[in-house]
């Protein structure tokens, strides 16, 4: 049965800002689906609020709406576009929930829009635990003993019946949000309350624990004629108890016997049929008791997912693309296998390699949060690697994380073996170094014997390397086992360069094998490669048109999807210019690692060794380092030393930008001032430093991350107190950073592109929060709303001058602060920045394309630069930010110089208030329409925020506040109920927030003590999803947005007009 002709126009829902549990894998799947449907001649309308994605590029879909993924906005879009169908299965849980809501509220029916990919009934039967468990029983599948809890008391009873440990799973949340494992009654009570609050339906499944069981996942597809295929089996290294997103996973599964595997496959098929999924992709998770072999079904997702992205990269089977084609009526046997180009898509990929995924965490960003892994996902990104054996694949994956060179030696802490954490892996290896028996490690970790044997083998080989002369045979053995040159060098007490030289001398070089979906059975043309030392190198035909782009590696806070956007856009631009583009990257979630994005894809760790190995083979004309964030840029020295031609800005330019004193010199005479700073290792040094800097200044110990112990120091006395208080943290080896504090300054982000005889401003973004908040965490607006036009002109002029003086070729991102008409430069990065995709979409300036043209030496005469004028933009765009504080219950949500946000949103409007409103909504900041606002304001903000308070009253809110704030407001004619501070006794303000009486909190503070005192206010807001504004400008912005929302006068605008 071929395509269903009645679908001519479809809406695809994206997944919104990147959050933990929903990252760029949905950009990958959505982009694939859009491209597939557009090439089928359908009109594709894409809705996503995340501007950092490739899918929201105007080239991907027929029309793109960067609008909030909320019902009222979708209704407007549907009314304008009148689509035939909507696909909610490609944008994660966000899209699925939104699809359900559109159905439930009758909007789909009203506009006669069909839901395709999955129906509401199917979504419900897979997502609703009670219905799903009933279906499981129908098909004879087992599930864990569990009960749905709808209220606290009932939950306590259920726990008694089931017994501890107990798993909590709130219904309809993404990434298992609000869930966890409770080992005791006390723990359980706290978690249950949180979980009930987290579930949009206030339902929590309380479940028997299967801790320690083996965990599996099957990625499956089905077409409407019933053809069923397993795309990939995945086995978790970590046993049950760790969220699968936080687990190290291996594909294909390694430890099930044939009959066990087929039993699982049969069951998956039955479940899919029972749920009624007519066509599309799904994943089903299983747990298997290693002793009794009893198998239970954990859950099913009737949509593409993080694992399906991984499975697509692991096998070469483009699940999302095929799912989209199936949704419009195709059958699997009617779709060609893209990779072989000779066989159909109805097959189960056969792998002749092993794939490892390791998640990447960010605990260090959230001071106070515990590095503990449980059923609630905490990782912010992941790496994937491919090797011929588990050992090779696994050690490559370790290197792909970009902070380890393999199984780094650690101080052994046996206690760490028995509780899952991001560091346990290294302890497992260390345990074998310490001589622990495998059986003991297995008992403590509950990790399967086979995996432990593999790790032990690696350590055995490690010891062999350390103890023996490094013969060519031994070196080859080490490389086949996945050891990096650096690790071998460490073990031999030499440097990695000499290992590299030895390898080259002995001809120990990696071969590059194809990911071909069929284990070599059919010839395949698709150039998707991985390195292995189990095969000999094969020469690749030379080309003088070959350019390499190095990607950005795993998503992490501060370096995420926006850089993948830059890379992908860069590939396309180079291809347009006639180049053959090679992509190197290690992140399976991305569009850049889709095999059809570039001309050749190498799935490799982004370290010097692996990158140089690839470059040796592909022998490019040049390498682009500016698109993938800091990761590729940090390779510049090694690449230049190896004689690799780096395109664009020279190493010298990059070095100057990073060297504070050289950079300060460059800025002299341009009109930028550099904030004064210094380092002090004791109080005496500090006071001479302070004389130079002047007050106020910021102090922070250098080794403490995340802005902790950072304080604003107003005078000599405070400085002395600070240094005596933190004497233990400050020493010559860990000095204290001291920076001039630009209090109340306005921060500005500028992106510049410079070619050999031209340069251009991509746009100027004005931050909404004052200086001191990391630029990635600050909301921003373009065009600037507060910056006087003469200053704006000066900024543009100076930035272009800076680019010239630095001799930038390609991208330059400049961060500035404006205070009292002085322009301070905070930093400049000679590369694509986080704001590039945002700017490209806001101001319609194709910055990456221009950057590539700059790097490739295109002259001004060959460009129509007049086309690209950001000042001509006729909309206002606000960048919203999203934070993961909910996932880190012990961490503070106050913003500082360390970036903490995981994602961004874009609000586009005809004016500032409309854009702000959309940005807040897209960032999941609820804009309350009535109720109570609690205010706790520091002295200097009271006056500033008086109009805001008045405005809130006018909007119909009641106000409450701490005694100082309340009496100030009262004195100024605004009614405000006084509430006790936490230390003033109960019931206090936090009780009030936790009781659900407060709908919005405005809490501005300064000074360490006040910050600590107000921690519980912010935390309770995070826990109860009450918007909490901590800065005066943000409060004003929120007011604007609330007024707009109340007016109800807002529209939606496609990107292409």
């Amino acid at each position, binding site marked *: 049965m071929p395509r269903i002709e009645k679908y001519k126009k479809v809406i695809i829902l994206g997944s919104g800002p990147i959050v933990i549990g929903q990252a760029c894998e949905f950009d990958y799947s959505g982009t694939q689906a859009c491209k597939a449907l557009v090439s089928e001649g359908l009109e594709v309308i894409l809705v996503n609020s995340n501007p950092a994605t490739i899918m929201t590029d105007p080239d991907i879909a027929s029309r793109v709406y960067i609008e909030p993924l909320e019902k009222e906005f979708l209704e407007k879009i549907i009314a304008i576009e009148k689509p035939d169908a909507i696909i909610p299965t490609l944008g994660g849980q966000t899209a699925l929930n939104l699809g359900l809501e559109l159905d439930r509220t009758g909007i789909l029916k009203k506009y006669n829009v069909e839901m395709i990919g999955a129906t509401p009934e199917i979504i419900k039967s897979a997502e609703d635990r009670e219905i799903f468990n009933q279906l499981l029983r129908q098909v004879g599948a087992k599930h864990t003993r569990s009960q749905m809890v709808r209220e606290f008391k009932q939950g306590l009873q259920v726990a008694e019946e089931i017994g501890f440990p107990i798993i909590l799973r709130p219904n309809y949340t993404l990434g298992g949000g609000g869930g966890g494992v409770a080992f005791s009654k006390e723990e359980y009570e706290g978690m249950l309350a949180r979980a009930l609050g987290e579930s949009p339906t206030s339902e929590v499944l309380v479940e028997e624990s299967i801790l320690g069981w083996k965990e599996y996942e099957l990625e499956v597809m089905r077409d409407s004629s019933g053809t069923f295929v397993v795309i990939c089996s995945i086995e978790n290294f970590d046993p049950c108890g760790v969220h699968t997103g936080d687990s190290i996973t291996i594909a294909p599964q390694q430890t099930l*016997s044939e009959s066990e595997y087929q039993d699982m496959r049969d069951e998956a098929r039955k479940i899919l049929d029972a749920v009624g999924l007519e066509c599309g992709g799904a994943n089903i998770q299983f747990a298997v008791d290693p002793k009794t072999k009893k198998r239970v079904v954990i859950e099913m997702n009737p949509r593409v997912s993080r694992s399906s992205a991984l499975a697509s990269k692991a096998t070469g089977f483009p699940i999302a693309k095929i799912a989209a084609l199936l949704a419009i009526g195709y059958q699997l*046997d009617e779709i060609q296998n893209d990779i072989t180009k000779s066989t159909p898509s109805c097959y189960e*990929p*056969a792998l002749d390699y092993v794939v490892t995924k390791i998640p990447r965490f960010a605990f260090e960003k959230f001071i106070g949060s515990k590095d503990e892994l449980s059923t609630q996902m905490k990782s912010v990104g992941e790496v994937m690697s491919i090797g011929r054996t588990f050992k090779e694949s696994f050690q490559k994956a370790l290197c792909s994380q970009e902070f380890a060179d393999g199984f780094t030696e650690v101080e052994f802490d046996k206690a760490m073996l028995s509780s899952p954490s991001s560091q346990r892996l290294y302890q497992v290896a260390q345990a074998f170094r310490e001589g622990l028996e495998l059986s003991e490690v297995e008992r403590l970790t509950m990790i399967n014997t086979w995996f432990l044997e593999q790790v032990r*083998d690696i350590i055995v080989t490690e010891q062999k390397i350390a103890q023996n002369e490094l013969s060519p045979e031994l070196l080859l053995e080490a490389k086949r086992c996945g050891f990096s040159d650096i690790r071998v060098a460490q073990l031999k007490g030499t440097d990695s360069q000499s290992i590299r030289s030895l390898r080259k001398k002995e001809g120990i070089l990696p071969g590059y094998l194809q990911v071909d979906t*069929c*284990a070599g*059975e059919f*010839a395949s043309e698709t150039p998707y490669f991985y390195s292995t030392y189990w*095969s000999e190198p094969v020469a690749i035909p030379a080309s003088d048109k070959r350019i390499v782009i190095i990607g950005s590696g795993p998503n992490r806070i501060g370096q995420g999807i926006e850089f993948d956007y830059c890379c992908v856009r860069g590939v396309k631009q180079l291809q347009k210019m006639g180049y053959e583009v090679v992509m190197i990257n290690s992140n399976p979630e991305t569009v850049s690692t889709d095999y059809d994005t570039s001309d050749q894809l190498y799935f490799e760790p982004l370290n010097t060794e692996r990158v140089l190995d690839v470059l040796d083979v592909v022998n490019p004309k040049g390498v682009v380092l500016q698109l993938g964030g800091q990761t590729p840029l940090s390779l510049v020295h090694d690449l230049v030393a190896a004689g690799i031609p780096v395109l664009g800005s020279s190493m010298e330019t990059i070095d100057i930008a990073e060297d504070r004193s050289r950079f300060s010199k460059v800025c002299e005479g341009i009109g930028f001032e550099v904030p004064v700073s210094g380092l002090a290792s004791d109080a005496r040094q500090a006071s001479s430093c302070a004389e130079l800097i002047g007050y106020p200044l910021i102090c922070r110990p250098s080794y403490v991350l995340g802005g902790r112990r950072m304080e604003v120091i107003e005078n000599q006395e405070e400085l002395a107190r600070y240094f005596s208080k933190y004497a233990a943290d400050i020493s010559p080896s860990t000095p204290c950073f001291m920076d001039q504090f630009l209090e109340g300054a306005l921060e500005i982000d500028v992106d510049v592109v410079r070619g050999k005889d031209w340069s251009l401003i991509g746009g100027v973004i004005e931050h909404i929060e004052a200086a001191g908040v990391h630029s990635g965490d600050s909301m921003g607006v373009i065009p600037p709303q507060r910056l006087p036009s003469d200053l704006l002109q000066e900024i543009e002029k100076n930035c272009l001058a800076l680019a010239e003086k630095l001799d930038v070729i390609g991208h330059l991102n400049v961060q500035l602060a404006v205070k009292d008409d002085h322009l301070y430069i905070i930093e400049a990065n000679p590369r694509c920045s986080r704001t590039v995709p945002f700017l490209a979409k806001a101001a319609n300036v194709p910055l990456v394309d221009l950057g590539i043209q700059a790097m490739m030496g295109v002259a001004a005469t060959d460009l129509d630069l007049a086309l690209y004028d950001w000042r001509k933009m006729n909309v206002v765009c606000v960048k919203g930010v999203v934070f993961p504080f909910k996932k880190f219950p012990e961490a503070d949500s106050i913003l500082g110089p360390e970036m903490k946000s995981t994602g961004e949103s874009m609000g586009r409007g005809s004016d500032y208030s409309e854009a702000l409103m959309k940005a807040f909504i897209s960032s999941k900041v609820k804009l309350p329409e009535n109720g109570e606002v609690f205010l706790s304001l520091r002295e200097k903000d009271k006056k500033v925020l008086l109009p805001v308070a008045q405005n809130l009253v006018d909007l119909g809110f009641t106000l409450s506040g701490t005694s100082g704030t309340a009496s100030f407001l009262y004195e100024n004619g605004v009614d405000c109920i006084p509430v006790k501070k936490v230390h003033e006794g109960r019931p206090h303000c936090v009780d009030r927030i936790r009781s659900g009486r407060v709908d919005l909190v405005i809490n501005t503070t300064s000074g360490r003590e006040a910050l600590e005192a107000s921690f519980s206010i912010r935390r309770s807001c995070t826990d109860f999803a009450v918007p909490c504004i901590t800065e005066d400008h943000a409060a004003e912005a929120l007011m604007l947005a609330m007024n707009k929302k109340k007016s109800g006068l807002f529209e939606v605008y496609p990107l292409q007009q």
Partner: protein
Amino acid sequence: MTQGYLVLESGGIFKGNWLVGENAVGEVVFNTSHNGYEEIATDPSYYGQIMVMCAPQQGNYGVDKSFWESRSLWIRGFIALDIQRSPENSQWLDRLSENGVPAIDGLDTRKLVLALREGGTQVGAMVSATSAEQAKEKSVSLINQFKEQGNKDWANEVTRKEAQRVQGAKGSGPKVAVLDFGCKENILRELIKRTSEVMVYPARTSASEILKWNPDGVLLSNGPGDPENVEVAVDTIKELLGQKPIFGICMGHQLLGRALGGKTFKLKFGHRGANHPIKDLQSGEVFMTSQNHGYAIDQDSLSGNVEVTHRNLNDKTVSGIRSLPDRCFSVQFHPESHPGPRDADALFDQFVELMQS
């Protein structure tokens, strides 16, 4: 570690680690199944063959006698990139060793598979040697000896020597005769579930012998080698045609095709794996199948009442035929799985229905 070599008749030579067993020779074939090494090694269809596993890590989950598909291991040798051998578990290697099957790992199996894909199935020798030259020397005579044996009726080598009666699980079910050309145990298990009695006959049993027992139907089993070399069976089948419902699997399918007047030919490198898509041309259904064959029926040679019922969607070869007037049907793939998907097991029900209709 001792060096082990695989030398192909075309001259290709691959070096790895010699793990267990004695030098051996056979037809070198590759299999893309991830799992099921023990089922594969005990499947008589692999008689005379050196098995190269595409999936790199083998032996991971140990062994289990209940996985056996016949009374012994039939493969001539076992090759994979990495064969499990740890203090905790080297069961698979031990089993190969106990059964005299040599094993090599650590050789570039990907390169070998591509060589077989490009050069076609061919004879090769597994030898332990100290150098490539020595390996070549040792191989030449082995390969020549093997080729000199000529085209042999391999089915007759692996079949039961005497008829064997098996009690069925279903008292009211039909009686089925099985012609054993190298029958997999799971075919019998599937039949036992559905029948009252199963009689397994040696490959060269005559039609009259079978008819004497008066079965309700005849199953033609899988088996090794070239269907052209199988003696007696085609005549037996011709005689049974029309008298009894017949269901053929793999070799049984090829022999049925020949009995119906068709021809068979050798595929370049065969189909061996667990992921081959088959389309049922009647229902339009597509399912994943387990396959293990080096020969296929030539579509153009079929005529008369013979219809093609199934097709392999990868290379469009004939994967199933039937003749309604003769009440017979057969498939090239393995509905009994082991290893591989069980999606086609309904074919056994279809056979029972045919016998009962």
